[in-house]
Structures are given as C-alpha cells and as structure tokens.
C-alpha cells in the first residue's frame, strides 16, 4: 500500500512535485558546478605552480637577490679588429647567474638533513647573452690623385691626401636565453619534472659531466633544434639529446644542462641558485619551512602556498569568485530550495488534512501517516537530486568543453634590477623567476569527482528529509477528528 499510495500521489501532484524537485535540482546543480569549477581552478593553479616548481616540490630554498648590480658587473663584449677583407662572424657569450646570489652546494646536504625533508636537489639558473655578427671595415676614398686606405674613421692629416671613408659597419645579433643546470642524479625533483620529453630522451644519472643538453620544445622550434643538433654556449658545444614540452605555461628554461656543466660555464663551481625540497608529509610543510629557516641561515624558503598567493590575474579573480560568491550563492540557493521544499510539503499536507484525518480515523497510526508524507518528500528530493546531478554534470561538461582561458600573472611584486634578461626579480625562486614577469594562459576545466556526486546525493536526501520533516511534523499533529471537517 505504501508504494501504491506513494506512486499515485506523486503522479497526481506531479506539478507540485516538479516545483519542489526543480528547486532542489537548481541548488544541487549549482553546488556541483561551483565545486567542480573550484576544483578546476585548483588544478589550474597547481599547473601554474608546477610550471615553476616541477612535480613533487613542496618548497624552494634560495638566497635573496643582491642589490642592484654595480657597473663593474655589467656584461662586456669585446671584438677584435680584423684584417682588411676579413668579414668572418665573431661572437661573444656572457653567462650569468640569474638574479639571485648563489648558495654553496653543501647547503643542499644541509637542507636534506633537516627533519621532515624527504629529498633536496640543487639547481643553477643561468642567463646567457650571446652577441654575434660581422664587422666590416670601411673604404677610404681619396679626393684628387692618389689614394690611401685608411682605418675606420681615420682621417688624413694635413698634407695628406684628402678623402673620406665610405662603407663598412657592423651587423650584430643579440640573443638571450636561459639555461638551467639540473642535477641529473636526482631526476625526480626540479623544474624539468614539469615537462615531458616529447623527443629523444632525458639525462641519464651518469651524465653528470657530459656535454649534452635538453631543449625546451618552444625554444627548439624557434632555433630549429632537434635531437642530434648542436648548441654552442660560451664556445662549448652540447649535443641535444632530447626535447621537452612544458605541461602547462612556460618552461623553466630554454636549455637544460647537467649541473656541473652549468657551473663551469658560469664560473660558479659548487654553487647553486635554488634548492628544491620535498617534504615527507605535505601537511608538515610549514614546520619544515620553519626548521630550514632556523637552521640554514641566510636563506629564503618559499612554499607552494607562498607562491600561490602571488598568482594574480583572471585565474586568481575567478578562483576568488568561485570560492566566495559561488560558495555562498550555492548555500543560499540550497537553503532557499530546502525551505521552499519544506513549506510546499507542509502546504500539501494542509490541503490533505481530511485525507490524513480519514486514515487516522480508520486506524492508521501517526507514524504510518508520517512515513507516507516523508516517503513522498524523499522521492521528490531524490528526483531533484537526479535532476540536479544531471544539470550539474551538464554544466561542468559545458565548462570543460568551452575551456575558458584564464590568465595567471605570476609574481609582480617588488622587482630588482634583474639580469640582462630584463625580467624583474620577483619573489620567486629558481628558474621560475624568469616566468615571474610573464602571464600564463591556463584552460579552465570543471572535473566532477565521485565525492562531489556523493555530496549531491547527500544533499538530495537531506532536502527530502528536511521537506519530509516539515510535512511529517504537520501530519503527525493532525487529529483524526479532522476527517469530519466538512469544508476542505
């Protein structure tokens, strides 16, 4: 009788049932979309952070950037004057440690020894400025008789043949790119982990001193590099063994070299710019940070959370919107839907006073009548839940299908003079700082987790129960004498 009665009542009152279910569905769909979009924001932010850190890194240790570089440290390029007619190309490389002061390689071991540290690996971030081109002498053209070749800019003295220098000049190309010296013995940590090797291979752990390089795919495309090509840095030739593509955003560097090679190029033996640290427990990152700051003096420790705070742009705005406005909107709609469902159920009971009074007069106990009311409300709630889940999934799917692009601006804090690359040295560590001045585009997705669906089902049941509680309470208070009421 319970199910027959339930089925017939829901069919008869399908409009009211649809109103209740739709209200709940709207609330539940909003919760699913907001939750999944928030989750997508989180993933987008993680991607941005990964592009700076690499997978598995919980924090970085650096030494703060030195004040503005003095003029004596400015890069100097020297080119020789060549013999007449020698227009061969000349080039000069300047390799500089990027932005930060270096740390002694022994610091890596010191950091590794701290409690709560799972692993630590050092890396050296460099900026290479290459100037290359040709220098051509001008030709002296003498007025009148005789002629004499002169040097560049040379002028004849008094009594000397009169004339002028014609032609000559310089054609130089300036190329700036970043190099990251990676510890090939620890391939699981560091910025290279945020890229996938799409061609060739990565470094072998034995290639500590090998003259091999991995090129970022964008840089490789620009410079037409492929596996087997050779790149020359400061006169040293490196064979490209692999091409890496960043999972998202910009790559950490244009070229990756074994750490020792990078140290040699920069005349920075046993020096690193950044130490990448993985904690044993992701919940104890703050404790580990404090321990490192306390025990390894003169360093700056930056955690993922610190870095996340510096992400701005539309990603940050959308993330804030999702977590604040979206969450409150969902709660407001849900509360309203629950209230409406409860009031409508209660009103439906009021309209059925004589019906329930009659059943009580026939000997139906209050509990049985209440169960009937709650059962109807529960089915409404579950219908709303199913409708809401379908709507929510469709909404989340639409967001993922459209994949709106969000911009993440990294850093933007007080910048130093920066290196020759001209990038402001924000608060970032390691090669990530090169990206500090840049804006990354991240596609937003809205992944729906099983937990989200479970929460939606829970909300549907809760909605049904709340509505049922309203109606059930009303029904339980009905007197059987109400069956004799003549006016409905």
């Amino acid at each position, binding site marked *: 009788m319970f199910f027959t009665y339930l089925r017939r009542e829901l069919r008869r009152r399908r409009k009211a049932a649809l109103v209740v279910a739709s209200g709940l569905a709207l609330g539940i769909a909003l919760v699913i979309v907001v939750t999944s979009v928030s989750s997508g924001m989180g993933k987008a932010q993680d991607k941005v952070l990964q592009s700076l850190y690499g997978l598995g890194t919980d924090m970085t240790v650096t030494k703060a950037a030195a004040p503005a570089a003095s003029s004596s440290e400015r890069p100097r390029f020297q080119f020789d004057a060549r013999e007449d007619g020698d227009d061969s190309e000349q080039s000069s490389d300047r390799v500089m440690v990027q932005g930060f002061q270096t740390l002694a390689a022994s610091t890596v071991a010191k950091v590794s020894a701290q409690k709560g540290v799972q692993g630590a690996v050092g890396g050296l971030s460099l900026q290479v400025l290459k100037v290359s081109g040709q220098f051509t002498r001008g030709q002296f053209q003498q007025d009148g008789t005789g002629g004499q070749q002169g040097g560049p800019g040379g002028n004849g003295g008094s009594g000397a043949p009169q004339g002028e220098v014609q032609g000559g000049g310089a054609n130089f190309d300036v190329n700036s790119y970043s190099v990251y010296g990676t510890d090939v013995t620890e391939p699981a940590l560091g910025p290279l982990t945020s890229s996938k090797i799409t061609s060739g291979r990565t470094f072998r752990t034995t290639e500590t001193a090998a003259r091999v390089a991995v090129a970022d795919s964008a840089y490789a495309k620009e410079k037409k590099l492929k596996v087997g090509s050779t790149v020359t840095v400061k006169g040293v030739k490196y064979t490209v063994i692999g091409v890496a593509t960043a999972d998202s955003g910009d790559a950490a560097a244009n070229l990756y070299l074994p750490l020792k090679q990078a140290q040699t190029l920069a005349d920075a033996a046993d020096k690193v710019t950044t130490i990448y640290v993985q904690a044993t427990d992701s919940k104890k990152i703050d404790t580990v940070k404090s321990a490192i700051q306390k025990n390894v003096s003169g360093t700056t420790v930056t955690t993922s959370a610190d870095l996340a705070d510096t992400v701005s742009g539309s990603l940050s705005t959308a993330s804030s919107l999702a977590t604040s406005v979206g969450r409150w909107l969902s709660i407001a709609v849900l509360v309203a839907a629950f209230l409406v469902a409860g009031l409508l159920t209660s009103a439906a009971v009021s309209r059925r006073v*004589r019906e329930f009074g009659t059943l009580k*007069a026939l*000997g139906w106990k209050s509990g049985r009548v209440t169960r009937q009311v709650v059962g109807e409300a529960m089915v409404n709630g579950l219908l709303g839940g199913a409708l809401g889940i379908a709507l929510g999934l469709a909404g989340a799917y639409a967001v993922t299908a459209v994949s709106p692009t969000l911009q993440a601006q990294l850093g933007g804090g007080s910048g130093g003079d920066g290196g020759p690359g001209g990038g402001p040295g924000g608060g970032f560590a390691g090669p990530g700082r090169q990206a500090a001045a840049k804006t990354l585009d991240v596609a937003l997705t809205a992944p729906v987790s099983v937990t989200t669906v479970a929460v939606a089902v829970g909300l549907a049941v809760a909605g049904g129960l709340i509505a049922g509680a309203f109606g059930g309470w009303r029904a339980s208070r009905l007197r059987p004498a109400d069956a004799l009421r003549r006016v409905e």
Partner: protein
Amino acid sequence: MYELRGVTKRYTRGKETVHALDGVDLTIADGDRLVIQGPTGGGKSTLLQMLGGLDRPTSGEVVLDGTDLARLSETRLTTVRSENIGFVFQSFNLIPTLTAQENVETALVPLGVKVRERRERAAEALRSVGLGERLGHLPSEMSGGQQQRVAIARALVKQPKVLLADEPTGNLDEGMRDEIMDVLDTLWKERGLTFIMVTHDSAIARKAPRLATIRKGRLTLTEKAAP
C-alpha cells in the same frame, strides 16, 4: 455496548466557551440502531467523535464494551478504532488517487492483513454493496452514490462491531439517499451491527426506532414502540 456517563465537551472559540456536550448520559446496546438529530452546531458531530474515539471528552466516561475510551492512550485508541469501529462520512472521504478496491483496503492496512487477503476481502466487500464491476475505478470515475457505497464497503470490510455514519446521505439526491439507506439498513440487519447515524434528514429520522435529539449540547432520547 456503549455507556456514556456525564459526558461534557467544552472548548473555547475566541473569548467564548462553547459547551458542545453538556452532561450527556446515553446507553446504546449491541445491535441498536440510533439516529442523532439536531440543529447545526448543536453537538451532533461532537457526540459522534466521542463515540468513535476521535476526540476525548472534557469530563465524563465513554465506555465501549467495558473500556473507557476517554482514558485510553492514543495508540490503544487507534487500535480500538481500527478493530471495532467503522466510519461513513458525509463527503465520502475517499482517497482520490486510489481505486475503489485500494480505498477499501486502507481499512485493513492497520490490522496487518496480508496483501492477497486484503485484496480478496476488499473485492468481496465491494461486491456486497453492488460494486463488483467497479473495483479498479477511481472515485472521480464514480457517481456520488457509488462513492458512498465504496465508503460503506471500507467501513464494513474489517467487520466492526459499530458503524458510525455522519450524514451519509447529506451529499446525495433523494434517489441516491434511499438507495444508500437501503444498503445501510440491510447490512445492519444482516451483520447485527450497532449502527449510529447523524442526520439532518427528517424523513430518515422519522423512521428511526430510537432518536436522540441534541440541542446546545443536551441530549433528549425518544424511543418508539416497535410496530
């Protein structure tokens, strides 16, 4: 057997205290047929509610077969209603979404009768009131007289000792009224029920062997000698 002793029911309406029943004494033997008549607001329905255990008196005793209904817990009172008392209402009070057979079955649900037996007994009860062909019809698909027959079948399917009817012909035309009264009288005679009916209809009241008239909560009993 009913024994009502000094039954009083008072309630407040705004600032006014209404004496719906005022010291009613009444004895109704098993198998009796009693008609209750009186002006609107005189206390007829209140008296029926007391007899049916739908409401409790402010004071006095409503004893059914030795049990004072006024002192029973709500659960026990519900059990008494489900086992011993059948109700027929003026507006039929059928569940609009249930078929005639399912409506009759609702009276057997609290007794814990198994589904199959419930269906059989409901069908039999409907046949006994001449609705054997209408088992699967909804109330909206039946005339007023047919709906009232379904209500009578629902009241009698559990074979109660007492049948209480609150103006059972109040919503019916004259032809239907006689038809329903014939059904009720026949069932009363066949089953030996105690049949108590509230009515405004003087024609019905005139035929009653025992007539209780209630005005301003006070009851006057008129007994006619058997013809």
